[in-house]
């Protein structure tokens, strides 16, 4: 298992606790946040590669949090978690640069696979950025493009 820095954001405390336990056992130690503000604070302080983000939360909602995360660090990959199944929200998320979205209830191992995919993509992005140097490519625009690409690929599987 790679050492992806994972952050799980959900307002369901028990879900955070159990998922953390399961993931620890399987080799990833995620950080957790129960709301958008906490999540942003953590991303500011510590390096985070992938965020699993619940769309519907009290306070700052998932879409807003996603936007702020991408503003903070465009390279952070975000997997949206939704219990609502709202197609519109999912599309909005993808437009804002989310890596994928997953319907609740989902399998933890499946979720972890998605996290790995996202992490791999982030690594590739970071690599490309390093090699491109300062040739003016906006990382954020790229992120949007790739994210959509990845999403369609993902769907076809």
């Amino acid at each position, binding site marked *: 298992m790679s050492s992806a820095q994972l952050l799980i954001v959900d307002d369901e405390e028990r879900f955070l606790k159990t998922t953390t*336990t399961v993931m620890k056992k399987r080799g990833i130690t995620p950080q957790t946040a129960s709301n958008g503000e906490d999540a942003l604070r953590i991303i500011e302080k510590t390096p985070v590669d992938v965020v699993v983000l619940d769309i519907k939360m009290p306070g700052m909602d998932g879409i807003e949090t996603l936007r702020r995360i991408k503003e903070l660090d465009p390279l952070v990959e975000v997997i949206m978690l939704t219990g609502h199944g709202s197609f519109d929200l999912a599309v909005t998320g993808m437009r804002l640069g989310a890596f994928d979205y997953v319907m*609740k209830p989902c399998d933890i191992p499946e979720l972890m696979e998605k996290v790995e995919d996202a992490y791999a993509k982030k690594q590739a992005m970071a690599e490309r950025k390093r090699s491109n140097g300062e040739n003016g490519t906006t990382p954020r625009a790229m992120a949007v493009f790739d994210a959509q690409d990845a999403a369609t690929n993902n769907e076809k599987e």
Partner: protein
Amino acid sequence: MKMTGQKKEKPVKYSRIRRIILSRILVAPFIILLMVCGVLVYYFAATLHSRVTGEMIRIVDDHRNMIDQFLSERTEDLKFIVNTTPYESICREHRLAEILEMLQKGSPAFLDLGVFDHSGNHIAYQGPYDLEGKNYQQAVWFQAVKEKPVYISDVFLGYRNTPHFVIAVRKEQNGVFWYLRATIDTYYFNNLVENIRVGETGEAYLINKEGVFQTKQRSGGKLMETDPDFSKTNLPGGRIVTYSTTDYQTNKYQYAIGRLHQTDWQLVVRQEYMDAAAPLIRAVMVAIGLIFIGGAVVVVIAFFLASNVAHRLSLADVEKREMTHQLIMAGKLAEVGEMSSGIAHEINNPLQVMKAEVTLIDDLFKDIAPQSDTDSENIEMIKDSVNQIGIQIDRCRKITQGLLKFARKSDPVIKKINPEELITETVDMVAHQAMLEGIPIETEIAPNLPEIESDPSQLQQVFLNLLNNAVYAVRESQKPEVRVIADMADKWIRIRVADNGWGISEDHLEKIFLPFFTTKPVGSGTGLGLSTCFGIIENLGGKIDVESDVGTGTTFTVLLPKG
């Protein structure tokens, strides 16, 4: 949603609407028609009456003048003779004959001529009768002519014993009077008066001041009889009068009467009132006829118009009801959809926690399994139980996903689809099992259906659902049959799944697309099948509809947008 059960909702008060429209359409025109006709008849009657009376006055006036002129001419003839011929000369027979001949040339009305001395002795006579030598001292006319120079007698019998009248003139010669008398041809004079004709029943006659007929009355009064209606016609004054009255036989007559200037006679012209008013009566009949014909036409037109309008109104009413029904249904479905997605979301969150817990328990078992051989049987049972929890979580997930699909919250994967292939494939999936149960599935697919862009797996889910329902519905039918018909309808691809099963009652029909509505026994179905179909089809821009008659069968119609 169409409800064939609506047959019983007959066009409400159709006949009442028609009656109201009919009365409104008819009342105003009929009042106007009656008023117009009434006014027309009134004015026509007034005009006609004045025309009739005017005409009669004119006739009386003309003919009175004519008769007056005739009498005065004859008188002048005689006066001329007495003034130009001396008594001695006229008494000679051949001379009198010459004079009569001359007079008759002037007017054939002269019948005979006689000369009388002062004491009434008939001195000379020329004419068809043998009257010479008779004495007329006591004759009415002789008495009268002694008093004045000219006398025109009433009709009398005299010595000849036939009705006639005479004109006598007096002449003074050498202090002694002598008289010349002429008899007027009754026949000739009668014709003169009688020939006046007005209409069918119009007639003219003369009466003297005692009411005795001086000429014949065409309707029956004989010469010298007394006019039975004399009391009604004896009016004083020289002016011509006209009026209507009834005769002694109670026939109504229009009279016009004028007094002659030459004698005391009155010229009476009369016409039966019904005859005089014939044009008026005809006009009234025509008017009434027109009212009836026009009225009938108006009634017929109005009837059709009213029927038409009433029919349209009732159609609109039915349409409105259907529309209201559809709106209510759509509103209900939207509300339930909103609720469904809320419920799904709220349930998905705890399911997610449960799922995580199950995964954790699974992982924990893996850790503890090698260490405990002792209680392995119990541990297996716990494992099985946890496994079951996982299965039940998945079951719940399916339900919430069904709910979300109904709420149209699922995202379709759009591909180009050949409708024929899709239908054939789907039917094949069900057909084998159905054949085993003795249920044939017929497909009628119109050739050259265009390709559509839609989600094939979602559509397949819809048609599988409809087919399974159809097969389920015909299980107990005598001759079970399921038909799938695909064709074009307007801009839609129309796919109908029809069965001849037991049908759906109206109560159920209303709820059929609502989630969790099912008539199957508890546990056999979630009641999400048709609601999911509804959600999918609406989400794909199509329409789904159902028609059903209990005992006859059910038809589901799916309309998909073309291209």
